[in-house]
């Protein structure tokens, strides 16, 4: 992000930020990204962010957990070393006893699979250096950024819209290497 030339609109109100996004996109100007200290309702929709496919990933991980639960228990209790304890079944008839462990492993795999996918997709890892544009963007300031290089000479329009929708400050961010 820091390696791009950006025009930054600084907002203090989420409603005004959304207003800015809507007006920019009406003019055919794509918003590069917004940075907010809290989730802003509907901002993703207005920015045209496609719905994440993390849910599909979660389903696949969950199915994997479900299968591994069954494989684990069938493998150990039925195929490898059947144990008769208290006369309880050690064949496929013990399926009802397998419900709790299978269920827990489904949940475990779903949660961690999705967590890992989330961190991977968001490029988050312990010790990653944050690239923040404004020290208050995690506190009380909302930023709207537009890529300056992708504008076809309509920079003036962008500045106009940002100003009119209530940006308290408009800055240029010059590419850093």
């Amino acid at each position, binding site marked *: 992000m820091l390696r791009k030339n950006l025009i930054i609109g600084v907002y203090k109100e989420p409603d005004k930020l959304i207003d800015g996004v809507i007006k920019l996109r009406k003019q055919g100007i794509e918003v590069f990204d917004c940075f*907010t200290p809290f989730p802003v309702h509907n901002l993703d929709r207005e920015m045209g962010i496609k719905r994440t496919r993390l849910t599909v990933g979660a389903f696949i991980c969950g199915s994997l957990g479900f299968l591994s639960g069954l494989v684990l228990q069938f493998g150990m209790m039925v195929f490898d070393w059947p144990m008769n304890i*208290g006369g309880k079944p050690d064949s496929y008839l013990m399926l009802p006893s397998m419900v*709790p462990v299978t269920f827990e492993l489904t*949940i475990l795999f779903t949660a961690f699979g999705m967590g890992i996918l989330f961190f991977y997709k968001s490029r988050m890892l312990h*010790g990653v250096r944050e690239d923040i544009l404004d020290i208050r963007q995690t506190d009380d300031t909302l930023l709207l950024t537009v890529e300056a290089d992708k504008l076809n000479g309509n920079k003036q329009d962008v500045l106009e819209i940002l100003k009119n929708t209530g940006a308290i400050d408009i800055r240029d961010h010059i590419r850093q290497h």
Partner: protein
Amino acid sequence: MFEAPIRQPLILGDKKFADVSNEICSPIENKPTKAWWFGFTLSFVCLMALVITLFWTVWTGIGTWGINKSVMWGWDITNFVFWIGIGHAGTLISAILLLFRQKWRLSINRSAEAMTIFAVMCAAIFPLFHMGRVWVGPYWALPLPNAFGSLWVNFNSPLLWDVFAISTYFSVSLLFWYLGLIPDIATIRDRAKTKARKFWYGIFAMGWNGSARTWHRYEVVSLILAGISTPLVLSVHTIVSMDFATSVIPGWHTTIFPPYFVAGAIFSGFGMVLTLLVIARSTMKLENYITIGHLEAMTKIVMLTGSMVGLAYITEFFIAWYSGVEYEQYAFLNRATGPYWWAYATMMFCNLVAPQVFWFKWCRTTPWFIFFMSIIVNIGMWFERFVIIVTSLHRDYLPSSWVMYGPTWVEVGMFVGTMGLFFTFFFLFSKFLPVINMAEVKVILKSKE
């Protein structure tokens, strides 16, 4: 969206976004108060009781406990179920109330989830040390290949289900909690004035910058995690109840146990949340975030779940009579009128009768009284587990093996010690992490309840 004019705002004091950050971060950025040091020291001393009693247990053996034949589960499993139950409120608040879109959860979910994690840690200690040789615990409890060839763990046993349930519960709760903490840790990182703080919070913030794309994924992940945590939390206490219900002991062998344990867990969990938050809101000056409205909502849940538990007690009694099984009938009669009648009476009073005061508005809105009641609930729910475990075990089918059970100093020390562990962690949490979810509270600043 239409909002009725009579509704109170969720967060009082007409806060700006920056006010939230300043106020919630102030305990982290300033030196701890005297009250904090006092509480922390007291908890730490109690924690040492845990260290000593566990050392003594391992050094000498389980014979240092008062458990005997036939009361093979005593204070240890009572405490285990007690702590697991306390954990449940955290997940209920953050997951189930999220699915129901209850916005009042947002200023209490962080501390309730922290409570969940610490409570599960306390709980795990008891069954682990009850195994005796704790150093070979993983070898018994986990499906590992072992020295006897491929002799595996017994998947027909509810105790093994418990191992899976509790470890899944702990790790998923930890993930959920940490995920919620990341944006707030990033806030502290960007406010940090010392190098150490910038470094440590920087590591745990994982490079968070509040991008709208990340927030989009983040909200989806939170929702799915809430969706799977809801059946998880119900399953955990269901499985804990199966430790009892799948046995053939009169007093344990009842199908009502799973729903009754889950209701009890939520009841006791909210009791502990109230105990902690009533103190935290006044000592940490959070009255504008954790308002009387929040306390009132929680007391209503306490009353509801308390009544559900009470209904279960009565149903159990009725079914014991209706079953026509004389052992079952005797077990329940003995529970209420036998030598442990005082424990049964305490349980009935604290869990069924006492919470009915919350029908009155004054009781629901007076913090010191709510605190008092929350202690009653904690005591009552501890006694519930004691009653279920000890009264069912102390009189066997064979009258010649009837015994009484009382704890030794080691068992008492362990319980006090886990209290110490719980509160030590809670004090550390309140010093180093934001006790209120800043990012989410900023969203609802202008919302009504």
